[in-house]
């Protein structure tokens, strides 16, 4: 799974074929040049923010399905960890989600800024109920 390729626009590669349950799909995680010591929420938050952005900008339900699967696969850490992940996701949406011109103009990406703002604000307030009622409920589903 470890591999490295330069100058690609995404750190996850999959075969360009129909994904089928029961069939093995080889997934590569690449671009390790920024591997660093940090908090794990940087990875989980970015992953969730980027997938959520595909839903916000293009209405891709498939991205939400991958997002929910990702939360389940990563599993429980703690409520505190979930809130720290949502802080990073909110900030990532604001900082990097609003400059992807492939996804829209600055005006069109205001929806991303607004989503990032709402996620950040409610993560900062530790408003678990707000998240449980929204698209990112999967982050809090299994937290006791």
């Amino acid at each position, binding site marked *: 799974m*470890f591999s490295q390729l330069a100058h690609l*626009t*995404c750190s*996850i*590669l*999959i*075969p*360009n074929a129909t*994904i*089928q349950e029961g069939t093995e799909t*080889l*997934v*590569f*995680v690449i*671009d390790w040049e*920024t*591997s*660093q*010591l*940090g*908090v*794990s929420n*940087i*990875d*989980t938050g*970015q*992953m969730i*923010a*980027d*997938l959520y*952005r*595909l839903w916000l900008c*293009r209405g*891709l*339900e*498939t991205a939400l*399905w*991958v997002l929910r*699967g*990702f939360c*389940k*696969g990563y*599993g429980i850490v703690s409520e505190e960890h979930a809130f720290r992940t949502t*802080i990073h996701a909110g*900030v*990532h949406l*604001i*900082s*990097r989600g*609003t400059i*992807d011109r492939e*996804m829209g103009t600055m005006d069109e990406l*205001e929806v991303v*800024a*607004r989503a*990032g*703002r709402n996620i*950040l*604000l409610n993560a*900062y307030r530790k408003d678990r109920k707000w998240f449980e009622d929204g698209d990112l409920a999967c982050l809090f589903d299994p937290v006791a």
Partner: protein
Amino acid sequence: MQIHEYLPNGVDIKTYLLERAIDRNESSLEPAFKSLGQALGSWVRHFHDEAAHHLDLVDVVAKNKEAQQVQQLVTYQFAVDRVKDYPEVLGDVTTILREVRKLAADELEGGSLQVIHGDLGPAK
């Protein structure tokens, strides 16, 4: 340049979701996409947990301090900078954006850090 592995007909997951799956928001596909996400999540968790036990890896990654600074800049500082682009949306969270920028910077001094990918995303 070294080639470690080769993925024939590979595509990044953002492109895959945008181009291949865009007309296929069919609920019948939900289990397969959830399984893909679950496998990714499970692998990332395993990587986070397992890397901590490889002290040689920790030592090498610890030297990449420049990447830590880039992460702080492009995520936490750039978010503060975006307020001027979206003042009506972000104006009332400016203080929070500055606080979390400090939180993220303080974490780097806190000592409870682990090996992370640092740019793990389906879109850039």
